[in-house]
């Protein structure tokens, strides 16, 4: 079947605007992750959803960042009042269960804040 999909693939926004990034995980995968990939910083964990448990938000860099996952499937990452330092590639991944399982990554959303 289809892999993890993300939309949009590219997003250019002005500083101060809000953005929403979408992730469609692989059907049947209970775990969903958001990461941020930027030059020199590698892959930075943002948030992790596992089944019906409360999400692990410990990686969110500020309260401008939030994410939700509806119906155990689609997830949206929202960044409010974007700043230039938010510019990065945002990756979503899903896995069958927890972190011991292979993570399947989406193609990413490249966010540019001008």
């Amino acid at each position, binding site marked *: 079947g289809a*892999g993890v999909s993300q939309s949009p693939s590219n997003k250019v926004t002005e500083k101060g605007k809000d953005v929403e990034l979408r992730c469609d995980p692989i059907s049947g995968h209970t775990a969903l*992750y958001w*990461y941020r990939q930027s030059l*020199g*910083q*590698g*892959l*930075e*964990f943002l948030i*992790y959803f596992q089944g019906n448990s409360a999400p*692990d938000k*410990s990686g969110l860099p500020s309260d401008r960042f939030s994410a939700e996952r509806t119906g155990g499937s689609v997830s949206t990452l929202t960044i409010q009042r974007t700043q230039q330092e938010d510019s990065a590639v945002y*990756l979503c*991944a899903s896995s069958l269960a*927890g*972190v*011991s399982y*292979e*993570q*399947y*990554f*989406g*193609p*990413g959303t490249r966010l540019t804040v001008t």
Partner: protein
Amino acid sequence: AQRVTQPEKLLSVFKGAPVELKCNYSYSGSPELFWYVQYSRQRLQLLLRHISRESIKGFTADLNKGETSFHLKKPFAQEEDSAMYYCALAFYYTGANSKLTFGKGITLSVRP
């Protein structure tokens, strides 16, 4: 604190040369370690995990608990191995809560 360290940002070798991509970790529990790879214009994907003890595309990685290392090795590099490689550690921190933490990655460039 749990941490994954990839000390080098770039490794450039000639085709046919041996490759070793270094990864060190810090974790007090029993580690689960992975190598992920991202080829140019492709998605990040799993290369191998230490539990499987397998060789993928000629790459192997052995967990050395004494040295807290999980270095990725290949005896003869190929041009198609050129990619970004990330080492990752899965750990549990409270009860059933768990997380996968990645190193900063290393770019492998294999020259013809």
